[in-house]
């Protein structure tokens, strides 16, 4: 150094520029920090969301399973009741039918359907059928048709086809 004194330290930027620059940098950093914090918080939620969604999927599956099982039991119960009912209906119908048959009439074949009844048999006379069997049949069944045919030994063979229209139950 060939001068008797050392030169003063020089600033690179004048005061205003330096202030502005540091202000801009500060604000930028502030915004970046803010963005990072928000991003961090978001990723926190994303992570929680992932596990939550998995959990919910599992629970949802379980709920579906459970409701299926409940439905199954309910349907089982329904079938059971239905089975019991139809068996009972059959049983009672059968009993009622045979209670219905008077001594004068002999049955040879019975085809019991849900809504129809085919009776084959014979009686002494037509009147025996029409007086003794037909009225109750008619009272039970909606439609009752009968066919008569003569048999060898003065017996009358009848073929009675009865149908019942199931009532539509309005709910």
């Amino acid at each position, binding site marked *: 150094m060939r001068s008797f004194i050392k030169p003063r330290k020089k600033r690179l930027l004048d005061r205003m520029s330096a202030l502005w620059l540091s202000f801009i940098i500060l604000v930028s950093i502030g915004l970046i920090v803010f963005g990072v914090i928000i*991003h961090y918080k978001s990723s926190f939620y*994303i992570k929680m969301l992932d596990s939550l969604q998995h959990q*919910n999927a599992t*629970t949802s599956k379980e709920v579906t399973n459970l409701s299926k099982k409940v439905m199954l039991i309910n349907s*089982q*119960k329904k079938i059971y009741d239905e*089975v019991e009912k139809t068996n009972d209906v059959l049983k009672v119908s059968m009993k009622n039918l045979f209670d219905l048959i008077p001594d004068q009439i002999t049955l040879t074949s019975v085809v*019991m359907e849900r809504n129809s009844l085919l009776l084959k048999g014979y009686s002494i006379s037509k009147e025996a059928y029409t007086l003794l069997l037909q009225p109750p049949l008619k009272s039970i069944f909606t439609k009752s048709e009968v066919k008569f045919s003569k048999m060898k030994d003065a017996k009358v063979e009848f073929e009675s086809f009865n149908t019942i229209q199931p009532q539509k139950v309005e709910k």
Partner: protein
Amino acid sequence: MSEASNKKTLRFIIFILAFMVVVMFFVFLFVIPSIKTYKSKKAEYSFQKRQEIILREKRQELEKKLSDLQNRYKKTIKAFANDFNEDEFLTLAKRYFNNVNLKRMKKTKSESGLDIYEFSADFNANTPVKFYDFVENLKSVNNVIKINFPVILQASGGKIDLKFNMSVYHLKE
């Protein structure tokens, strides 16, 4: 030195512009998308959280209902679960009928997943009352046995031939 002050003013304006550009850049590129993401994720999370509670309650409700039903209809469930013992059935039938013939037909599956075993029965009874008794005592067999229509009774030599189809409902536990 108005030239100097002009220069100063210009620099000041440039700085303000630079500042605005920088701020806009960061806000639009950084802050706003971040906030958007945050809001949506937070909303999603709240939704899922609510779902969690709803589902949990539902599950609890169903669990309770299920165990309730399982308790209430224990007998019914058991009836479905029991394997159908043909011999046991025929033994019962023999009590009321003379000839007992049971033919296995097909096995189907119902909508709800129950197995349905179809049989055709061919019995011979002395009186039709036997049939009534038989059906009555069908309940003692711990199976779900449904007698299908049509039931055909045929007189044969003083006795009655019974023909009908029956379905056995089965569901393993």
